[in-house]
């Protein structure tokens, strides 16, 4: 006779356990880990360039990990800020996992770091279920993507602590309807803080940095 076994084991329990360990390491060292997620082309890297510069300008010790399927182009861009930066090349995998973050922490001295920005692979679906040990999950939405994007990709937006609307300098050109976007965000991310930014003009970057530092002090 076939036997049935009842259990309740998380499918991603290995990733969850490793992420929990990373979270303890980050918290123990006083590092705010930030997982930045968005679709491709919504301006994550441009945003992180100005955020890194702003953090360093305030004397905050910041570093970054950046995930992409291929190339080290984004790490090269972010390293121009002067912050320690590592590229995670996923070789086609569509999201970052906790083990990739762990493997790339070697050489980063967490005890001498305040903020670690982790730029995920550009993807609004797959990163949803993969905890990286972050304290804050930021999901970006650019004004050129359409106001209803949160409704089309609700899974990731419901997991956001912070939603950053990027490229607001293009809002008028893109006929971006703020009321529609905010209503969509209220549907799927009612608990998230929303901040509007422009990497080009610098608008909102100080607000975002202040919000991150506020969460670091918790």
């Amino acid at each position, binding site marked *: *006779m*076939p*036997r*049935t*076994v*009842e*259990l*309740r*084991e*998380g*499918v*991603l*329990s*290995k*990733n969850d356990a490793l992420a929990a360990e990373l979270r303890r390491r980050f918290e123990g060292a006083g590092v705010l880990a930030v997982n930045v997620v968005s679709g491709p082309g919504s301006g994550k890297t441009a945003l992180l360039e100005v955020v890194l510069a702003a953090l360093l300008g305030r004397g905050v010790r910041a570093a970054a990990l950046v995930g992409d399927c291929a190339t080290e182009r984004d790490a090269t861009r972010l390293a121009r800020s002067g912050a320690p930066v590592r590229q995670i090349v996923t070789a086609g*995998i*569509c*999201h970052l*996992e906790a083990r990739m973050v762990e493997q790339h922490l070697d050489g980063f001295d967490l005890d001498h770091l305040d903020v670690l920005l982790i730029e995920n692979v550009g993807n609004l*679906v*797959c990163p*949803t*279920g*993969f905890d990286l040990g972050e304290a804050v999950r930021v999901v970006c939405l650019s004004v050129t993507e359409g106001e209803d994007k949160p*409704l089309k990709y*609700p*899974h*990731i937006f*419901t*997991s956001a602590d912070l939603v950053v609307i990027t490229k607001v300098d293009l809002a008028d050109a893109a006929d971006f309807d703020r009321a529609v976007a905010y209503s969509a965000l*209220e*549907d*799927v*991310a*009612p*608990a*998230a803080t929303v901040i509007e930014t422009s990497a080009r003009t610098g608008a909102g970057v100080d607000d975002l940095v202040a919000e991150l530092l506020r969460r670091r002090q918790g």
Partner: protein
Amino acid sequence: VHELTIASAIVQVAANHGNGGAVLEVLVEVGELAGVSPDALQFAWDVAAAGTPCEGARLVVRLVAVAVRCPSCGTEGELAEPLRLRCRACGTPTGDVIRGRELHVVQLTLAPEVGHAAHR
């Protein structure tokens, strides 16, 4: 398409609990907010299971509806409209999700152990 990663992780969980014996069926609970497509998961399942104790096993997906707790009136319940995170009783927006993020293996059906009688 992270479903192949998910399918491989399900195979690992099932194989561990099955002590290496053949697995006939795996029941998983997938929350509506887990970000996993049941169709894509089924599609990836055969590939992930090939050459493992799960080869040929049936994957059964049980979807779990989203439920939230209301910060204002305390009601706990499923959503009135799909993926609109509001209290079904009073309409207050709430991010307090109490169900719907599950991604769990909850039941395995294992083949009878070969040579069981010989141990008697």
